[in-house]
Protein backbone atom coordinates (compact mmCIF):
# COMPACT_ATOMS: atom_id res chain seq x y z
CA UNK A 1 0.00 0.00 0.00
CA UNK A 2 1.60 3.21 -1.16
CA UNK A 3 0.51 6.79 -0.56
CA UNK A 4 -1.19 7.03 -3.96
CA UNK A 5 -3.42 4.07 -2.99
CA UNK A 6 -4.38 5.81 0.23
CA UNK A 7 -5.46 9.03 -1.48
CA UNK A 8 -8.81 7.88 -2.92
CA UNK A 9 -9.69 6.11 0.33
CA UNK A 10 -8.90 9.27 2.27
CA UNK A 11 -10.76 11.38 -0.25
CA UNK A 12 -13.90 9.24 0.14
CA UNK A 13 -13.50 9.21 3.91
CA UNK A 14 -13.32 12.99 4.12
CA UNK A 15 -16.67 13.27 2.38
CA UNK A 16 -18.32 11.19 5.13
CA UNK A 17 -16.37 12.46 8.05
CA UNK A 18 -18.80 12.77 10.95
CA UNK A 19 -18.60 9.16 12.07
CA UNK A 20 -14.90 9.03 11.35
CA UNK A 21 -14.23 12.14 13.42
CA UNK A 22 -16.22 10.78 16.37
CA UNK A 23 -14.35 7.49 16.30
CA UNK A 24 -11.03 9.33 15.88
CA UNK A 25 -11.83 11.37 18.98
CA UNK A 26 -12.66 8.18 20.82
CA UNK A 27 -9.32 6.70 19.76
CA UNK A 28 -7.51 9.89 20.83
CA UNK A 29 -9.09 9.87 24.29
CA UNK A 30 -8.47 6.14 24.62
CA UNK A 31 -4.81 6.58 23.73
CA UNK A 32 -4.30 9.47 26.14
CA UNK A 33 -5.97 7.64 29.02
CA UNK A 34 -4.55 4.25 28.18
CA UNK A 35 -0.93 5.35 27.91
CA UNK A 36 -0.98 7.45 31.07
CA UNK A 37 -2.94 4.86 33.03
CA UNK A 38 -0.63 2.04 32.05
CA UNK A 39 2.36 4.23 32.86
CA UNK A 40 0.95 4.88 36.32
CA UNK A 41 0.20 1.17 36.74
CA UNK A 42 3.80 0.36 35.79
CA UNK A 43 5.05 2.79 38.43
CA UNK A 44 2.77 1.21 41.02
CA UNK A 45 3.89 -2.29 40.05
CA UNK A 46 7.52 -1.21 40.22
CA UNK A 47 6.87 0.32 43.63
CA UNK A 48 5.25 -2.84 44.95
CA UNK A 49 7.96 -5.02 43.48
CA UNK A 50 10.94 -3.00 44.74
CA UNK A 51 13.55 -5.04 46.55
CA UNK A 52 13.22 -4.48 50.29
CA UNK A 53 16.64 -5.85 51.12
CA UNK A 54 14.97 -8.30 53.52
CA UNK A 55 13.97 -11.95 53.28
CA UNK A 56 10.29 -10.95 53.40
CA UNK A 57 8.95 -14.28 52.16
CA UNK A 58 10.37 -16.18 55.14
CA UNK A 59 9.65 -13.78 57.97
CA UNK A 60 6.78 -13.56 60.40
CA UNK A 61 5.85 -11.56 63.46
CA UNK A 62 4.60 -12.51 66.91
CA UNK A 63 3.36 -10.19 69.62
CA UNK A 64 3.37 -11.34 73.22
CA UNK A 65 1.12 -9.19 75.43
CA UNK A 66 1.36 -9.64 79.17
CA UNK A 67 -1.86 -8.94 81.01
CA UNK A 68 -1.16 -9.79 84.68
CA UNK A 69 0.64 -7.87 87.36
CA UNK A 70 3.20 -10.59 87.80
CA UNK A 71 4.04 -10.87 84.10
CA UNK A 72 7.81 -10.51 83.65
CA UNK A 73 8.23 -9.09 80.18
CA UNK A 74 12.01 -9.32 80.03
CA UNK A 75 12.17 -12.86 81.36
CA UNK A 76 9.42 -13.89 78.97
CA UNK A 77 11.35 -12.37 76.07
CA UNK A 78 14.51 -14.21 77.07
CA UNK A 79 12.68 -17.52 77.30
CA UNK A 80 10.70 -16.97 74.12
CA UNK A 81 13.76 -15.98 72.06
CA UNK A 82 15.74 -18.92 73.42
CA UNK A 83 12.91 -21.26 72.48
CA UNK A 84 12.35 -19.66 69.10
CA UNK A 85 16.04 -19.77 68.15
CA UNK A 86 16.20 -23.45 69.13
CA UNK A 87 13.41 -24.49 66.78
CA UNK A 88 14.35 -26.43 63.68
CA UNK A 89 13.75 -24.35 60.59
CA UNK A 90 14.21 -21.06 62.44
CA UNK A 91 17.17 -19.15 60.99
CA UNK A 92 17.05 -16.25 63.45
CA UNK A 93 14.73 -14.32 65.74
CA UNK A 94 14.90 -10.94 67.40
CA UNK A 95 12.93 -8.66 69.62
CA UNK A 96 12.20 -5.29 68.07
CA UNK A 97 10.20 -2.11 68.45
CA UNK A 98 8.50 -2.02 65.03
CA UNK A 99 7.63 -4.12 62.03
CA UNK A 100 9.30 -3.21 58.75
CA UNK A 101 6.91 -2.37 55.86
CA UNK A 102 3.97 -2.21 58.27
CA UNK A 103 3.29 1.52 58.23
CA UNK A 104 4.18 1.90 61.95
CA UNK A 105 7.61 2.65 63.35
CA UNK A 106 9.95 5.16 64.95
CA UNK A 107 12.08 7.85 63.44
CA UNK A 108 14.60 10.44 64.52
CA UNK A 109 17.24 12.62 62.97
CA UNK A 110 21.02 12.34 63.21
CA UNK A 111 23.89 14.48 62.03
CA UNK A 112 27.52 13.87 61.23
CA UNK A 113 28.63 16.68 63.59
CA UNK A 114 27.49 17.91 67.00
CA UNK A 115 24.97 20.75 66.74
CA UNK A 116 24.22 19.90 63.14
CA UNK A 117 21.64 22.40 61.84
CA UNK A 118 18.21 20.86 61.35
CA UNK A 119 18.34 21.15 57.59
CA UNK A 120 21.61 19.13 57.53
CA UNK A 121 20.29 16.37 59.75
CA UNK A 122 19.36 13.06 58.19
CA UNK A 123 16.01 11.48 58.96
CA UNK A 124 16.19 7.81 59.83
CA UNK A 125 13.69 5.09 60.59
CA UNK A 126 15.23 3.04 63.37
CA UNK A 127 14.67 -0.49 64.62
CA UNK A 128 15.76 -1.54 68.09
CA UNK A 129 17.15 -5.05 67.85
CA UNK A 130 19.53 -7.42 69.55
CA UNK A 131 22.52 -9.19 68.02
CA UNK A 132 20.09 -11.43 66.09
CA UNK A 133 18.47 -8.49 64.27
CA UNK A 134 20.74 -8.43 61.27
CA UNK A 135 20.25 -12.09 60.49
CA UNK A 136 16.54 -11.99 61.29
CA UNK A 137 15.92 -9.29 58.70
CA UNK A 138 18.10 -11.17 56.26
CA UNK A 139 19.87 -7.97 55.23
CA UNK A 140 23.33 -7.97 53.74
CA UNK A 141 26.14 -6.32 55.72
CA UNK A 142 28.20 -4.35 53.21
CA UNK A 143 30.86 -3.13 55.66
CA UNK A 144 31.75 -3.33 59.37
CA UNK A 145 30.28 -5.80 61.83
CA UNK A 146 27.15 -6.98 63.61
CA UNK A 147 26.26 -5.95 67.16
CA UNK A 148 27.86 -7.82 70.03
CA UNK A 149 25.66 -9.22 72.79
CA UNK A 150 27.26 -6.93 75.38
CA UNK A 151 26.33 -3.85 73.34
CA UNK A 152 22.60 -4.47 73.66
CA UNK A 153 21.24 -1.78 75.98
CA UNK A 154 18.62 -2.66 78.58
CA UNK A 155 15.23 -1.02 78.34
CA UNK A 156 15.38 2.71 79.09
CA UNK A 157 11.86 4.21 79.19
CA UNK A 158 13.29 7.68 79.67
CA UNK A 159 15.86 7.43 76.86
CA UNK A 160 18.63 8.93 78.96
CA UNK A 161 21.44 7.39 76.97
CA UNK A 162 22.07 7.12 73.28
CA UNK A 163 23.00 3.68 71.99
CA UNK A 164 26.80 3.37 71.79
CA UNK A 165 26.75 1.82 68.34
CA UNK A 166 24.52 1.68 65.29
CA UNK A 167 24.27 -0.10 61.96
CA UNK A 168 22.98 2.07 59.14
CA UNK A 169 21.97 1.52 55.53
CA UNK A 170 24.17 2.69 52.66
CA UNK A 171 21.54 5.29 51.94
CA UNK A 172 22.00 6.86 55.39
CA UNK A 173 25.79 6.58 55.07
CA UNK A 174 25.71 8.43 51.76
CA UNK A 175 23.46 11.14 53.18
CA UNK A 176 25.78 11.65 56.16
CA UNK A 177 29.24 11.08 54.74
CA UNK A 178 28.95 11.04 50.97
CA UNK A 179 31.37 8.54 49.48
CA UNK A 180 33.48 8.24 52.64
CA UNK A 181 33.55 4.98 54.60
CA UNK A 182 30.99 5.39 57.41
CA UNK A 183 32.28 2.56 59.60
CA UNK A 184 33.95 4.00 62.72
CA UNK A 185 32.45 7.42 62.25
CA UNK A 186 30.41 9.04 64.97
CA UNK A 187 26.93 10.44 64.52
CA UNK A 188 24.98 12.68 66.89
CA UNK A 189 21.32 12.76 67.82
CA UNK A 190 19.36 15.94 68.50
CA UNK A 191 20.75 16.04 72.07
CA UNK A 192 24.28 15.81 70.68
CA UNK A 193 24.75 12.32 72.12
CA UNK A 194 27.33 10.35 70.13
CA UNK A 195 26.87 6.96 68.54
CA UNK A 196 29.53 5.07 66.59
CA UNK A 197 28.66 3.45 63.30
CA UNK A 198 29.88 -0.15 63.40
CA UNK A 199 28.26 -1.53 60.27
CA UNK A 200 26.69 -0.59 56.98
CA UNK A 201 23.79 -2.56 55.46
CA UNK A 202 23.59 -2.78 51.72
CA UNK A 203 19.84 -2.03 51.53
CA UNK A 204 16.77 -2.24 53.75
CA UNK A 205 13.30 -0.78 53.65
CA UNK A 206 11.85 0.69 56.81
CA UNK A 207 8.30 0.97 58.05
CA UNK A 208 6.74 3.51 55.71
CA UNK A 209 6.69 2.33 52.11
CA UNK A 210 5.34 5.63 50.81
CA UNK A 211 8.17 7.63 52.43
CA UNK A 212 10.69 8.84 49.85
CA UNK A 213 13.46 7.96 52.35
CA UNK A 214 12.13 4.46 52.97
CA UNK A 215 15.67 3.05 52.72
CA UNK A 216 17.13 5.44 55.33
CA UNK A 217 17.16 2.85 58.08
CA UNK A 218 19.27 2.32 61.20
CA UNK A 219 19.46 -0.67 63.53
CA UNK A 220 20.12 0.22 67.16
CA UNK A 221 21.34 -2.27 69.85
CA UNK A 222 18.52 -1.51 72.25
CA UNK A 223 15.97 -3.60 74.14
CA UNK A 224 12.59 -2.02 73.31
CA UNK A 225 10.79 -0.58 76.27
CA UNK A 226 7.16 -0.17 75.46
CA UNK A 227 4.28 -1.35 77.62
CA UNK A 228 3.96 -5.01 78.46
CA UNK A 229 4.43 -6.25 74.93
CA UNK A 230 7.23 -8.10 73.29
CA UNK A 231 7.35 -7.93 69.52
CA UNK A 232 9.31 -10.72 67.90
CA UNK A 233 10.32 -11.14 64.31
CA UNK A 234 11.25 -14.64 63.21
CA UNK A 235 12.98 -15.73 60.03
CA UNK A 236 12.77 -19.32 58.85
CA UNK A 237 14.50 -21.40 56.24
CA UNK A 238 12.83 -21.09 52.81
CA UNK A 239 9.48 -22.89 52.65
CA UNK A 240 9.15 -23.45 56.41
CA UNK A 241 7.52 -20.18 57.36
CA UNK A 242 3.87 -21.26 57.54
CA UNK A 243 4.60 -24.53 59.31
CA UNK A 244 6.87 -22.79 61.83
CA UNK A 245 4.40 -19.96 62.32
CA UNK A 246 1.65 -22.41 63.34
CA UNK A 247 3.96 -24.27 65.69
CA UNK A 248 5.17 -21.03 67.30
CA UNK A 249 1.66 -19.71 67.82
CA UNK A 250 0.54 -22.99 69.38
CA UNK A 251 3.50 -23.24 71.75
CA UNK A 252 3.68 -19.61 72.88
CA UNK A 253 -0.08 -19.46 73.45
CA UNK A 254 0.13 -22.24 76.01
CA UNK A 255 3.61 -21.77 77.46
CA UNK A 256 2.78 -18.81 79.70
CA UNK A 257 -0.60 -18.10 81.26
CA UNK A 258 0.29 -14.49 82.06
CA UNK A 259 0.26 -13.33 78.47
CA UNK A 260 -1.63 -13.68 75.24
CA UNK A 261 -0.19 -14.24 71.80
CA UNK A 262 -1.42 -12.16 68.88
CA UNK A 263 -0.26 -10.68 65.62
CA UNK A 264 1.17 -13.96 64.35
CA UNK A 265 1.38 -12.95 60.71
CA UNK A 266 3.74 -13.28 57.79
CA UNK A 267 5.67 -10.11 57.04
CA UNK A 268 4.05 -10.32 53.57
CA UNK A 269 0.74 -9.50 55.23
CA UNK A 270 2.06 -6.13 56.40
CA UNK A 271 3.78 -5.44 53.09
CA UNK A 272 0.59 -6.25 51.15
CA UNK A 273 -1.47 -4.09 53.49
CA UNK A 274 0.90 -1.15 53.03
CA UNK A 275 0.71 -1.44 49.27
CA UNK A 276 -3.04 -2.11 49.21
CA UNK A 277 -3.95 1.31 47.83
CA UNK A 278 -1.28 1.02 45.14
CA UNK A 279 -2.51 -2.43 44.21
CA UNK A 280 -6.14 -1.30 44.14
CA UNK A 281 -5.19 1.73 42.07
CA UNK A 282 -3.38 -0.52 39.60
CA UNK A 283 -6.34 -2.91 39.37
CA UNK A 284 -8.75 0.01 38.94
CA UNK A 285 -6.66 1.62 36.22
CA UNK A 286 -6.16 -1.66 34.37
CA UNK A 287 -9.92 -2.29 34.51
CA UNK A 288 -10.72 1.21 33.26
CA UNK A 289 -8.12 0.89 30.52
CA UNK A 290 -9.45 -2.48 29.39
CA UNK A 291 -12.98 -1.11 29.41
CA UNK A 292 -11.96 1.93 27.41
CA UNK A 293 -10.07 -0.21 24.90
CA UNK A 294 -13.13 -2.43 24.57
CA UNK A 295 -15.47 0.53 24.03
CA UNK A 296 -13.06 1.97 21.46
CA UNK A 297 -12.90 -1.36 19.64
CA UNK A 298 -16.71 -1.45 19.64
CA UNK A 299 -16.81 2.08 18.20
CA UNK A 300 -14.42 1.13 15.42
CA UNK A 301 -16.37 -2.07 14.77
CA UNK A 302 -19.65 -0.14 14.64
CA UNK A 303 -18.27 2.45 12.22
CA UNK A 304 -16.80 -0.22 9.95
CA UNK A 305 -20.04 -2.21 10.05
CA UNK A 306 -22.05 0.90 9.26
CA UNK A 307 -19.74 1.83 6.39
CA UNK A 308 -20.06 -1.64 4.92
CA UNK A 309 -23.84 -1.70 5.25
CA UNK A 310 -24.37 1.64 3.51
CA UNK A 311 -21.98 0.76 0.71
CA UNK A 312 -23.34 -2.62 -0.35
CA UNK A 313 -24.04 -1.42 -3.89
CA UNK A 314 -20.67 0.32 -4.10
CA UNK A 315 -18.85 -2.79 -2.94
CA UNK A 316 -20.75 -4.90 -5.49
CA UNK A 317 -19.78 -2.40 -8.18
CA UNK A 318 -16.13 -2.50 -7.16
CA UNK A 319 -16.24 -6.29 -7.26
CA UNK A 320 -17.96 -6.19 -10.68
CA UNK A 321 -15.30 -3.96 -12.19
CA UNK A 322 -12.44 -6.08 -10.99
CA UNK A 323 -11.82 -5.84 -7.25
CA UNK A 324 -10.76 -9.10 -5.68
CA UNK A 325 -12.04 -9.99 -2.22
CA UNK A 326 -8.63 -9.06 -0.84
CA UNK A 327 -8.95 -5.61 -2.42
CA UNK A 328 -12.23 -5.03 -0.60
CA UNK A 329 -10.78 -6.20 2.73
CA UNK A 330 -7.79 -3.96 2.16
CA UNK A 331 -9.98 -0.97 1.32
CA UNK A 332 -11.85 -1.16 4.60
CA UNK A 333 -8.74 -1.91 6.64
CA UNK A 334 -6.99 1.09 5.10
CA UNK A 335 -10.02 3.27 5.74
CA UNK A 336 -10.11 2.11 9.33
CA UNK A 337 -6.37 2.62 9.67
CA UNK A 338 -6.78 6.21 8.51
CA UNK A 339 -9.52 6.80 11.09
CA UNK A 340 -7.41 5.21 13.82
CA UNK A 341 -4.32 7.11 12.73
CA UNK A 342 -6.19 10.41 12.86
CA UNK A 343 -7.17 9.56 16.41
CA UNK A 344 -3.69 8.37 17.26
CA UNK A 345 -2.09 11.62 16.08
CA UNK A 346 -4.49 13.64 18.19
CA UNK A 347 -4.10 11.12 21.01
CA UNK A 348 -0.32 11.52 21.07
CA UNK A 349 -0.69 15.25 21.69
CA UNK A 350 -3.42 14.61 24.25
CA UNK A 351 -1.36 11.91 26.00
CA UNK A 352 1.56 14.32 26.32
CA UNK A 353 -0.77 16.98 27.68
CA UNK A 354 -2.33 14.66 30.25
CA UNK A 355 1.10 13.28 31.14
CA UNK A 356 2.47 16.78 31.69
CA UNK A 357 -0.52 17.74 33.81
CA UNK A 358 -0.18 14.59 35.93
CA UNK A 359 3.54 15.17 36.37
CA UNK A 360 3.02 18.73 37.56
CA UNK A 361 -0.07 18.08 39.68
CA UNK A 362 0.91 14.76 41.27
CA UNK A 363 4.71 14.83 41.00
CA UNK A 364 4.68 11.81 38.72
CA UNK A 365 7.57 11.21 36.36
CA UNK A 366 7.16 12.42 32.78
CA UNK A 367 5.48 10.03 30.38
CA UNK A 368 7.92 7.55 28.90
CA UNK A 369 7.96 7.65 25.08
CA UNK A 370 8.11 3.87 24.86
CA UNK A 371 4.71 3.70 26.50
CA UNK A 372 3.36 6.13 23.95
CA UNK A 373 4.81 4.08 21.11
CA UNK A 374 3.37 0.89 22.60
CA UNK A 375 -0.02 2.60 22.98
CA UNK A 376 0.02 3.73 19.35
CA UNK A 377 0.87 0.21 18.15
CA UNK A 378 -1.77 -1.28 20.41
CA UNK A 379 -4.51 1.02 19.13
CA UNK A 380 -3.51 0.42 15.53
CA UNK A 381 -3.69 -3.32 16.13
CA UNK A 382 -6.97 -2.95 18.03
CA UNK A 383 -8.44 -0.89 15.18
CA UNK A 384 -7.44 -3.41 12.55
CA UNK A 385 -8.74 -6.30 14.64
CA UNK A 386 -12.06 -4.52 15.22
CA UNK A 387 -12.47 -3.75 11.51
CA UNK A 388 -11.44 -7.22 10.36
CA UNK A 389 -14.84 -8.93 10.62
CA UNK A 390 -16.81 -6.13 8.87
CA UNK A 391 -14.14 -6.03 6.17
CA UNK A 392 -14.42 -9.77 5.61
CA UNK A 393 -18.18 -9.41 5.47
CA UNK A 394 -17.81 -6.68 2.85
CA UNK A 395 -15.58 -8.95 0.78
CA UNK A 396 -18.32 -11.59 0.72
CA UNK A 397 -20.78 -9.23 -1.00
CA UNK A 398 -21.54 -10.63 -4.44
CA UNK A 399 -20.56 -8.60 -7.49
CA UNK A 400 -24.05 -9.30 -8.83
CA UNK A 401 -25.34 -6.72 -6.33
CA UNK A 402 -24.17 -4.17 -8.90
CA UNK A 403 -26.92 -5.16 -11.35
CA UNK A 404 -29.75 -5.16 -8.83
CA UNK A 405 -32.14 -2.29 -9.24
CA UNK A 406 -33.61 -2.48 -5.72
Amino acid sequence: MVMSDIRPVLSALLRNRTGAILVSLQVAIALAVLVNAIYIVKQRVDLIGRPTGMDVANMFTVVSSGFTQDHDRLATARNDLAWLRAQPGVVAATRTNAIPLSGGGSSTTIGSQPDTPNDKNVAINYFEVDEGGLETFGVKLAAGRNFRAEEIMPPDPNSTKAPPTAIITKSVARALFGSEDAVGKVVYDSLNRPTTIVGVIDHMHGSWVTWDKVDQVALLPVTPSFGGDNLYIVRTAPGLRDETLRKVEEYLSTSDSTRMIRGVRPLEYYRDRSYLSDRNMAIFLVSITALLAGVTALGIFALATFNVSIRTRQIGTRRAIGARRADIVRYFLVENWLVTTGGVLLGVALAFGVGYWLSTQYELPRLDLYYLLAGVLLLWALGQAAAWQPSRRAARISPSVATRTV
Partner: protein
Amino acid sequence: MLAMRHISKVYRTELIETHALRDFSLDVASGEFVAVTGPSGSGKTTFLNVAGLLETFDTGSYALDGVDVNDLSDDARSRLRNEKIGFIFQSFNLIPDLDIFDNVDVPLRYRRMKAAERKERITSALDIVGLGSRAHHMPSQLSGGQQQRVAIARAIAGDPKFLLADEPTGNLDSLMARQVMDLLEQINEMGTTIVLVTHDPELARRAHRNVQVIDGQVSDYKPYEARNVPVAATAIA
Protein backbone atom coordinates in the same frame (compact mmCIF):
# COMPACT_ATOMS: atom_id res chain seq x y z
CA MET B 1 -15.93 -13.51 -28.11
CA LEU B 2 -18.71 -15.05 -26.05
CA ALA B 3 -19.76 -18.68 -26.39
CA MET B 4 -22.41 -20.03 -24.05
CA ARG B 5 -23.59 -23.60 -24.41
CA HIS B 6 -26.58 -25.15 -22.60
CA ILE B 7 -26.22 -22.91 -19.57
CA SER B 8 -28.63 -23.43 -16.71
CA LYS B 9 -28.96 -21.37 -13.58
CA VAL B 10 -31.35 -22.19 -10.77
CA TYR B 11 -32.01 -20.00 -7.74
CA ARG B 12 -33.04 -22.07 -4.76
CA THR B 13 -34.73 -21.09 -1.54
CA GLU B 14 -36.12 -23.42 1.09
CA LEU B 15 -39.50 -23.33 -0.60
CA ILE B 16 -38.99 -22.88 -4.32
CA GLU B 17 -36.62 -23.32 -7.18
CA THR B 18 -36.52 -20.70 -9.91
CA HIS B 19 -35.03 -21.74 -13.23
CA ALA B 20 -33.62 -18.40 -14.35
CA LEU B 21 -31.71 -19.83 -17.32
CA ARG B 22 -32.37 -23.18 -18.93
CA ASP B 23 -30.41 -24.70 -21.75
CA PHE B 24 -29.29 -21.21 -22.66
CA SER B 25 -26.94 -21.01 -25.63
CA LEU B 26 -25.58 -17.90 -27.31
CA ASP B 27 -22.63 -16.87 -29.42
CA VAL B 28 -21.48 -13.31 -29.81
CA ALA B 29 -18.71 -12.61 -32.28
CA SER B 30 -15.92 -10.18 -31.78
CA GLY B 31 -16.99 -6.70 -32.82
CA GLU B 32 -20.72 -7.46 -32.72
CA PHE B 33 -23.33 -5.23 -31.12
CA VAL B 34 -26.01 -7.55 -29.79
CA ALA B 35 -29.17 -6.56 -27.98
CA VAL B 36 -30.66 -9.05 -25.55
CA THR B 37 -34.32 -8.33 -25.03
CA GLY B 38 -37.17 -9.90 -23.19
CA PRO B 39 -39.93 -9.14 -20.74
CA SER B 40 -39.39 -8.67 -17.03
CA GLY B 41 -38.45 -11.92 -15.32
CA SER B 42 -37.38 -13.55 -18.55
CA GLY B 43 -33.79 -14.09 -17.36
CA LYS B 44 -32.10 -11.11 -19.00
CA THR B 45 -30.38 -9.98 -15.79
CA THR B 46 -29.32 -13.53 -14.94
CA PHE B 47 -27.83 -13.80 -18.42
CA LEU B 48 -26.04 -10.51 -17.83
CA ASN B 49 -24.70 -11.70 -14.47
CA VAL B 50 -23.48 -14.98 -15.89
CA ALA B 51 -22.03 -13.37 -19.03
CA GLY B 52 -20.30 -10.74 -16.89
CA LEU B 53 -18.93 -13.39 -14.49
CA LEU B 54 -20.86 -11.77 -11.68
CA GLU B 55 -22.53 -15.08 -10.90
CA THR B 56 -21.66 -18.69 -11.53
CA PHE B 57 -23.95 -21.10 -13.37
CA ASP B 58 -25.04 -24.64 -12.60
CA THR B 59 -24.50 -26.55 -15.83
CA GLY B 60 -23.26 -25.88 -19.33
CA SER B 61 -20.12 -24.23 -20.57
CA TYR B 62 -19.06 -20.69 -21.18
CA ALA B 63 -15.97 -19.40 -22.92
CA LEU B 64 -15.15 -15.70 -22.87
CA ASP B 65 -12.59 -14.60 -25.44
CA GLY B 66 -11.40 -18.19 -25.63
CA VAL B 67 -11.10 -18.61 -21.84
CA ASP B 68 -13.21 -21.38 -20.32
CA VAL B 69 -14.62 -19.72 -17.22
CA ASN B 70 -16.22 -22.81 -15.67
CA ASP B 71 -13.56 -23.63 -13.13
CA LEU B 72 -12.02 -20.24 -12.53
CA SER B 73 -11.37 -19.14 -8.97
CA ASP B 74 -13.05 -16.04 -7.61
CA ASP B 75 -9.82 -14.08 -8.00
CA ALA B 76 -9.37 -15.25 -11.58
CA ARG B 77 -12.94 -14.23 -12.40
CA SER B 78 -12.27 -10.81 -10.88
CA ARG B 79 -9.15 -10.46 -13.01
CA LEU B 80 -11.01 -11.53 -16.14
CA ARG B 81 -13.84 -9.07 -15.44
CA ASN B 82 -11.30 -6.33 -14.91
CA GLU B 83 -9.31 -7.00 -18.05
CA LYS B 84 -11.87 -8.12 -20.61
CA ILE B 85 -15.27 -6.74 -19.58
CA GLY B 86 -16.55 -3.21 -19.25
CA PHE B 87 -19.80 -2.81 -17.33
CA ILE B 88 -22.42 -0.13 -17.85
CA PHE B 89 -25.20 -0.27 -15.29
CA GLN B 90 -28.71 1.12 -15.42
CA SER B 91 -28.13 3.16 -12.25
CA PHE B 92 -24.64 4.22 -13.37
CA ASN B 93 -23.16 2.84 -10.11
CA LEU B 94 -20.64 5.62 -9.77
CA ILE B 95 -18.98 5.90 -6.38
CA PRO B 96 -20.52 9.05 -4.92
CA ASP B 97 -17.55 9.86 -2.68
CA LEU B 98 -15.05 9.97 -5.54
CA ASP B 99 -14.75 12.60 -8.23
CA ILE B 100 -15.10 11.71 -11.90
CA PHE B 101 -11.37 11.15 -12.40
CA ASP B 102 -11.14 8.80 -9.42
CA ASN B 103 -14.29 6.94 -10.48
CA VAL B 104 -12.76 6.14 -13.85
CA ASP B 105 -9.54 5.26 -12.06
CA VAL B 106 -11.09 2.54 -9.88
CA PRO B 107 -10.84 -0.45 -12.28
CA LEU B 108 -7.41 0.66 -13.45
CA ARG B 109 -6.09 0.62 -9.89
CA TYR B 110 -7.36 -2.92 -9.49
CA ARG B 111 -5.28 -3.77 -12.55
CA ARG B 112 -2.19 -2.42 -10.76
CA MET B 113 -1.43 0.01 -13.59
CA LYS B 114 1.26 2.64 -13.18
CA ALA B 115 -0.05 6.11 -12.31
CA ALA B 116 1.12 7.71 -15.55
CA GLU B 117 -0.61 5.11 -17.71
CA ARG B 118 -3.76 5.35 -15.63
CA LYS B 119 -3.84 9.12 -16.04
CA GLU B 120 -3.41 8.84 -19.79
CA ARG B 121 -6.21 6.29 -20.10
CA ILE B 122 -8.58 8.25 -17.85
CA THR B 123 -8.01 11.46 -19.77
CA SER B 124 -8.52 9.70 -23.06
CA ALA B 125 -11.70 7.93 -21.93
CA LEU B 126 -13.18 11.13 -20.51
CA ASP B 127 -12.39 12.92 -23.76
CA ILE B 128 -14.18 10.21 -25.74
CA VAL B 129 -17.34 10.66 -23.66
CA GLY B 130 -16.97 14.44 -23.82
CA LEU B 131 -16.34 15.03 -20.12
CA GLY B 132 -12.66 15.84 -20.15
CA SER B 133 -13.31 19.20 -18.55
CA ARG B 134 -15.35 17.70 -15.70
CA ALA B 135 -12.67 15.38 -14.35
CA HIS B 136 -12.77 16.84 -10.87
CA HIS B 137 -16.51 17.21 -10.52
CA MET B 138 -18.37 14.96 -8.15
CA PRO B 139 -21.04 12.62 -9.59
CA SER B 140 -23.73 14.59 -7.78
CA GLN B 141 -22.74 17.67 -9.79
CA LEU B 142 -23.55 15.93 -13.09
CA SER B 143 -26.81 15.17 -14.88
CA GLY B 144 -27.97 11.58 -15.30
CA GLY B 145 -26.75 11.47 -18.89
CA GLN B 146 -23.36 12.81 -17.87
CA GLN B 147 -23.13 10.28 -15.06
CA GLN B 148 -23.85 7.48 -17.51
CA ARG B 149 -21.15 8.84 -19.80
CA VAL B 150 -18.74 8.74 -16.86
CA ALA B 151 -19.78 5.12 -16.31
CA ILE B 152 -19.05 4.46 -19.99
CA ALA B 153 -15.66 6.14 -19.63
CA ARG B 154 -14.98 3.90 -16.63
CA ALA B 155 -16.01 0.87 -18.68
CA ILE B 156 -13.81 1.68 -21.68
CA ALA B 157 -10.77 3.10 -19.88
CA GLY B 158 -9.38 -0.37 -19.34
CA ASP B 159 -9.70 -1.08 -23.09
CA PRO B 160 -11.97 -4.12 -22.63
CA LYS B 161 -12.84 -6.43 -25.50
CA PHE B 162 -16.42 -6.70 -24.38
CA LEU B 163 -18.93 -4.19 -23.03
CA LEU B 164 -21.95 -5.38 -21.09
CA ALA B 165 -24.63 -2.71 -20.84
CA ASP B 166 -27.58 -3.27 -18.53
CA GLU B 167 -30.48 -1.01 -19.52
CA PRO B 168 -27.98 1.84 -19.92
CA THR B 169 -30.67 4.36 -20.80
CA GLY B 170 -33.26 3.12 -18.34
CA ASN B 171 -32.84 6.12 -16.07
CA LEU B 172 -32.40 8.75 -18.78
CA ASP B 173 -34.72 10.96 -20.77
CA SER B 174 -34.95 10.39 -24.50
CA LEU B 175 -32.39 13.01 -25.51
CA MET B 176 -29.79 11.73 -23.09
CA ALA B 177 -30.66 8.16 -24.02
CA ARG B 178 -29.98 8.94 -27.66
CA GLN B 179 -26.62 10.50 -26.78
CA VAL B 180 -25.65 7.44 -24.77
CA MET B 181 -26.67 5.10 -27.58
CA ASP B 182 -24.69 7.22 -30.05
CA LEU B 183 -21.70 6.86 -27.79
CA LEU B 184 -22.11 3.10 -27.55
CA GLU B 185 -22.34 2.84 -31.32
CA GLN B 186 -19.21 4.93 -31.64
CA ILE B 187 -17.39 2.64 -29.20
CA ASN B 188 -18.60 -0.42 -31.09
CA GLU B 189 -17.35 1.08 -34.33
CA MET B 190 -13.95 1.30 -32.68
CA GLY B 191 -14.01 -2.51 -32.36
CA THR B 192 -15.43 -3.23 -28.93
CA THR B 193 -18.01 -6.01 -28.72
CA ILE B 194 -21.18 -4.84 -27.01
CA VAL B 195 -24.00 -6.82 -25.47
CA LEU B 196 -26.89 -4.58 -24.56
CA VAL B 197 -29.56 -5.91 -22.24
CA THR B 198 -32.78 -3.96 -22.65
CA HIS B 199 -36.50 -4.26 -22.74
CA ASP B 200 -36.78 -1.27 -25.06
CA PRO B 201 -37.33 -2.44 -28.68
CA GLU B 202 -36.36 1.05 -29.92
CA LEU B 203 -32.88 0.68 -28.47
CA ALA B 204 -32.60 -2.93 -29.52
CA ARG B 205 -33.14 -1.94 -33.13
CA ARG B 206 -29.88 0.00 -33.08
CA ALA B 207 -27.92 -3.23 -32.45
CA HIS B 208 -26.63 -5.49 -35.21
CA ARG B 209 -28.56 -8.42 -33.87
CA ASN B 210 -31.38 -8.97 -31.44
CA VAL B 211 -31.66 -11.97 -29.18
CA GLN B 212 -34.91 -12.49 -27.35
CA VAL B 213 -34.95 -14.28 -24.02
CA ILE B 214 -38.15 -15.83 -22.76
CA ASP B 215 -38.41 -18.05 -19.71
CA GLY B 216 -34.67 -18.31 -19.40
CA GLN B 217 -34.12 -19.48 -22.95
CA VAL B 218 -33.16 -17.79 -26.20
CA SER B 219 -36.43 -17.98 -28.04
CA ASP B 220 -35.02 -17.45 -31.47
CA TYR B 221 -31.53 -18.88 -31.04
CA LYS B 222 -29.57 -19.15 -34.23
CA PRO B 223 -25.88 -20.00 -34.33
CA TYR B 224 -23.84 -16.99 -35.24
CA GLU B 225 -23.41 -16.36 -38.93
CA ALA B 226 -20.56 -14.25 -40.17
CA ARG B 227 -21.74 -10.88 -41.34
CA ASN B 228 -20.24 -7.60 -42.13
CA VAL B 229 -19.50 -6.25 -38.69
CA PRO B 230 -16.90 -3.60 -38.05
CA VAL B 231 -13.47 -4.95 -37.23
CA ALA B 232 -11.31 -3.54 -34.52
CA ALA B 233 -10.20 -0.29 -36.01
CA THR B 234 -8.80 1.70 -33.17
CA ALA B 235 -7.88 0.56 -29.74
CA ILE B 236 -8.81 3.08 -27.13
CA ALA B 237 -5.59 4.04 -25.49
